């Protein structure tokens, strides 16, 4: 009998406690803390998408702000021009818009690799940023566009309910469910035959070609899926933030996505998720405590590259392995 690998029971078992904690946490911590966690989970969705390219396909994008911003602006346009405030319509619009732009940009970018790929993704995202910046009569320019509290699953927010209460409860759970489903789907994708093909491309492009994998088509689909995840995150982010400005289309926001993916560890599935949540707290507290917060983040980044190149998840995994061997 061959040792057919067991179904993903073990992976599932390790996720259940985390999911339970995420469900119970809003009952225990202050509403503001819950919204921070919601931000973290939203960035985690973006990071999961981003890491399909970096960790699994071996492509470093410096332009993921484009898809995040596209998701966010699609929502703002839906409010501005269609006067619709349904969250489900927001998500649909955000996903379709980011998918369209990812399909186009991906088509142009995936024929290149390494620095050429990175620079091209960056340049294309900057085009979107400049459009959002210049066409102020459409995009609101630097003032941005406001997005009101949406209805969730057709249920309007009761009149008089505080926005914070809404965000820290109903909206948090909405985000949490989408995050869990999104993470589960991504987990399946990276363990699917398609995911294996991506990893083969990452490990050796030429050899993958000679196994019959049409490299650029797979990269393009990976790019598309990656863009959709990031766009979904953008659409979820706007109602939480209440406002979208060109800042989230700027390449420095792409840099943040890279940052928290590296912080968490791009060689593991959970790394980017952990990195996104941790980064969000780190930035919030650094901004709150010192005007030199960018320096704090800079030092963290330098330390990360020098001391923990495997990121939080990668390093924790190694420590656990050592511990197990020692016992």
């Amino acid at each position, binding site marked *: 009998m061959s040792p057919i690998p067991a179904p993903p029971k073990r992976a599932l078992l390790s996720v259940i406690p985390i999911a339970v904690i995420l469900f119970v946490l809003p009952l225990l911590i202050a509403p503001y803390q819950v919204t921070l966690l919601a931000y973290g989970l939203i960035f985690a969705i973006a990071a999961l998408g981003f890491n399909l390219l970096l960790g699994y396909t071996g492509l470093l994008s410096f332009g993921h702000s484009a898809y995040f911003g596209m998701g966010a602006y699609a929502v703002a346009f839906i409010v501005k021009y269609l006067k619709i405030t349904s969250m489900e319509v927001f998500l649909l619009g955000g996903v379709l818009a980011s998918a369209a732009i990812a399909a186009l940009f991906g088509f142009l970018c995936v024929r290149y690799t390494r620095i050429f790929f990175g620079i091209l993704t960056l340049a294309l995202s900057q085009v979107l940023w400049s459009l959002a910046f210049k066409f102020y009569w459409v995009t609101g320019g630097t003032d941005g566009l406001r997005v009101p509290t949406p209805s969730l699953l057709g249920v309007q927010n009761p009149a008089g309910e505080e926005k914070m209460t809404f965000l820290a409860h109903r909206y948090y759970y909405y985000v949490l469910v989408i995050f869990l489903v999104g993470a589960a789907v991504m987990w399946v994708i990276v363990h699917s035959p398609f995911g294996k093909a991506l990893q083969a491309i990452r490990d050796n492009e030429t050899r993958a070609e*000679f196994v019959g994998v049409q490299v650029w088509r797979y990269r393009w689909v990976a790019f598309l899926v990656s863009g959709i995840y990031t766009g979904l995150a953008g659409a979820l982010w706007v109602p939480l933030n209440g406002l979208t400005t060109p800042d989230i289309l700027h390449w420095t926001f792409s840099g943040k996505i890279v940052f928290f993916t590296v912080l968490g560890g791009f060689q593991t599935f959970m790394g980017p998720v952990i990195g996104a949540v941790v980064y969000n707290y780190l930035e919030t507290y650094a901004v709150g405590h010192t005007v030199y917060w960018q320096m704090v983040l800079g030092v963290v980044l330098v330390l990360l590259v020098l001391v923990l190149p495997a990121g939080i998840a990668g390093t924790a995994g190694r420590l656990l392995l050592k511990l197990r061997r020692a016992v």
Partner: protein
Amino acid sequence: MALLETKSLTKYFGDTHAVDHVDFSVAQGELLALIGSNGAGKTTLVNLISGLLRPDSGTILFQGADVTAMSVHDRIRAGIARSFQLVTVFDQLGTLDNVGLAIFAREGKTWRLLSLANSDHAVSEEAFEMLREFGLEGKASLSAGGLAQGERKLLDVAVAYALRPKLLFLDEPTSGVSTREKAPIMDIITSIVRSGKITAVIIEHDMDVVFRYSDRIVVMHEGAILADGTPDEIRRNEQVTTTLLGTSPSQ
């Protein structure tokens, strides 16, 4: 009819005539060795036939059909597979996954995004069976990057073999392994190739290996075919022995 035939196949790199009007053919079912000194054009010829390089001129016929302009992907579909001189396995994937991926690709299943690879038991079973044939079943769960050089060589061949090709090119399957390991590796490869009724072309430097395992030998020299014959004929060919082996037949 020959399984594969090249007609006046030519590839120049600047002034270097890497492959110069070569008429090369492979008959169905044979195990052919392609030999020659470094720079003779062996690997370039295989690169042209497998689609890694485009020829400057000439045609490639596979099973009578012109495949000269075909993409790599279509050539693999037609039944041409290869391994590489420098080992090229997927290091971070598991050993089983390396072979499994080739099977998924062969069956057109690599576009499945929403099903787990290891839930396809037919593919896992076949991949494991293939590892067993290559003597790698004990390494199934290791990542390919952690294998020893000889094992990686075998895995490289196994990945190509898993595509179930009609014609398999093996570019120096024993390079970089110790002399002691060469015979076992070649024994495994040749027995699998013969039992699978695959036509194979092996590029090899080790003359012991070449003479012992091949049905026919084609000798290349400076981009052209110098000689073509059975091992006995090649051994007796004076032109070959002086240019290639640097010895006379009596030695």
